């Protein structure tokens, strides 16, 4: 009994100070960490591939007007799986190493993007000025069967 308590005490003393001085000293996450998403508005051409694959369904695509497509990332429910980053043909979405995302303003947790969509000369539906289909195919995007809209 006594020996046991002695061993336990030794383990505790041997461990020393374990608690990190966070947040006084900031902690860098490991490389490859999947944190808050960042969307580059200049690169996005509004294909909606990210919305198609998002398991949590946090990305909403709406064609607000003839030439305007609105993408909203409600990332408060984001699960940081990184599927959007994986399929984006333009590399417009990136998972950063940012993990301190607490906020008391709900609007901080929405990224809103308005993408200008030029009408295609052939069919008149929404497409951006340079034809994206080849680029998307080259980037490995495949059409799933389920439409992705819940």
């Amino acid at each position, binding site marked *: 009994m006594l020996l*046991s308590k002695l061993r336990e005490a030794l*383990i505790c003393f041997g*461990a020393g100070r374990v608690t990190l001085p966070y947040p006084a000293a900031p902690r860098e996450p490991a490389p490859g960490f*999947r944190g808050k998403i960042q969307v580059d508005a200049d690169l996005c051409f509004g294909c909606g591939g990210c919305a198609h*694959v998002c*398991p*949590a369904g946090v990305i909403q695509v709406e064609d607000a007007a003839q030439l305007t497509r609105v993408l909203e990332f409600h990332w408060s429910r984001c699960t940081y*799986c990184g599927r959007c980053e994986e399929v984006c043909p333009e590399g417009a979405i990136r998972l950063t190493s940012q993990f301190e995302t607490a906020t008391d303003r709900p609007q901080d947790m929405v990224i809103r993007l308005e993408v200008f969509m030029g009408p295609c000369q052939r069919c008149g539906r929404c497409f951006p000025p340079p034809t994206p289909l080849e680029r998307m195919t080259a980037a490995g995007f495949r059409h799933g069967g389920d439409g992705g809209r819940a």
Partner: protein
Amino acid sequence: MGPRKRPSRGPGRSPGKIMDQPDAAAARLTDLLRERLGALLLVAERPQPDTLRCEVAPAGVRAAAGALAWDAGARFLITVGLDVRALGRGFAIAHLFSLDAAHLFVSLEIPVDAADARIDAITPLIPAADWAEREFRDAIGVEPDGHPDPRRLMLPDDWPDGIYPLRRDFRYNARPPAAGGRPVLADAPPGASVLPMGPFFPTLEEPSYWRLFVEGERIVGCDYRGFYNHRAIEKLGETVLGYDKLPFVAERICGICGFIHSTCACQAIEKAAGIDVPARARYIRTIMLELERVHSHLLWLGIAAHIIGFETLLMQSWRIREPIMWLSEAISGNRKTYGMNCVGGLRRDISPETAGKIRETLDPVEREMRAVRKAVVGDTTLLARTKGVGVLTKEWAERIAVVGPPARASGVAIDARLDHPYAAYPEIPPRLCVQQDGDVWARVVVRLDELEDSIRLIRGALDGMPDGPIRAEITEPIPAGRLGISVVEAPRGEAVHFVLTGDDNRAYRWRVRAPTYPNLQAVPSMIAGETIADVPITVGSLDPCFSCTERLEAVDVRSAAMRVYSRDELLALSRRRGSQGGER
């Protein structure tokens, strides 16, 4: 007693127990069922090499289940309720069994007439089927005739009668109006008082409501009402999620054994679709599964110590665990819910540098874990609270079909990694850690043994990991109507996933059984005759995970008693507080 080689199943089992290899076992089992059932055995086929699917007419369900469980020695896994009206049939009930020694799954499927949705309950024969039969009664609306306790299990008490959430014509986001029912509580034995434990009990972090029937300090019985944490995950898997999204949601069934559930779901789909996973991916899955076991067992050791007030052990085991969490972050990009699994393999590889880091991290974990073990095994306070407490006899463990460390601590030699080898376990077999005493202490020892073995397995997988791709190329759509049953040995026991593939790139039916599901049903047998003070550690010794067990329907249960706040009021209140910076 330390870990030992797989023992023979010993005497006491039926002499006709089937222990052959899958093919021979399936043939013998088919013969046995044909002999017992005659024309009532409608179909016997092998959709997968390790699966025998038998379709049995409704009149033969008890004879078939009895032959399987009592003559062939099959272990009951779970029941799947299927609504196959869309396929031109009625309902179907599939009782899943495992012939562990023969490495064979058996699906006993019984067609049920949609106009007269009844089936003979098998619970009187196989007590382990208790909750499973109550669950399909709630979810699909098939009445188990002759069930000894046909109360609601997973639906809330105010859910309206006649609405069955897992039927295909029930929309996944429908919200039927509350009907205002009251919980149906079991009566206490005469002379006993009722002591409520829960729904929120401080040392069990999730809601579970136990009504303990006590005579003085002694427990003479109990009643359980749980399923407060439904999240509609199975329904989502059938209606909203495609195969590409399912693993990520499956991972969120459990916060601790997430990788286990995503692996299990992926394996079930891969099996159904006939996808060969590359060897490297199987090895990396093994590494992640065992890392999860290491950190889960250390976490459990701390919590168990905390329940009995041994805070030193809590602090030390969690300190030892923390580097494993950092390691997981370095491998996968997150401490938990790694997001690494996908159907066909993995999304992230382990680089040589990361492999080195894994080895570097494991050495001190192993050393310190051994030091802690050496220190606490002689601690009389710890032994006094755990030795001879919460005993689960081997007989009851087999009867309730308990899985994982609680089963192995009661001398039941089962381990999904050996019984239904998956990932890289055929190449790197784990040791079977068995104890005979069946008390809380035996469960501690089993987990401590498994901790050491997991570290050995990770090193073995790192040594044997071949080069090559980590993801199979999937070019064809996954065909509909295929069956896949997969098990994974989670730290808490065996997880079971059943997938019936469907159209539109998603499962027609996805059934999940978490290990706590059977284990919780053993609690009444474990706490009978114990004192009130031993109940938390006894329940805690199962490493219970309530929200994993409860995956079906997300509706809040409103108390039938006096209400102080409505849900909206509570939400409004908490939001207002939040916006004022957490003012008290």
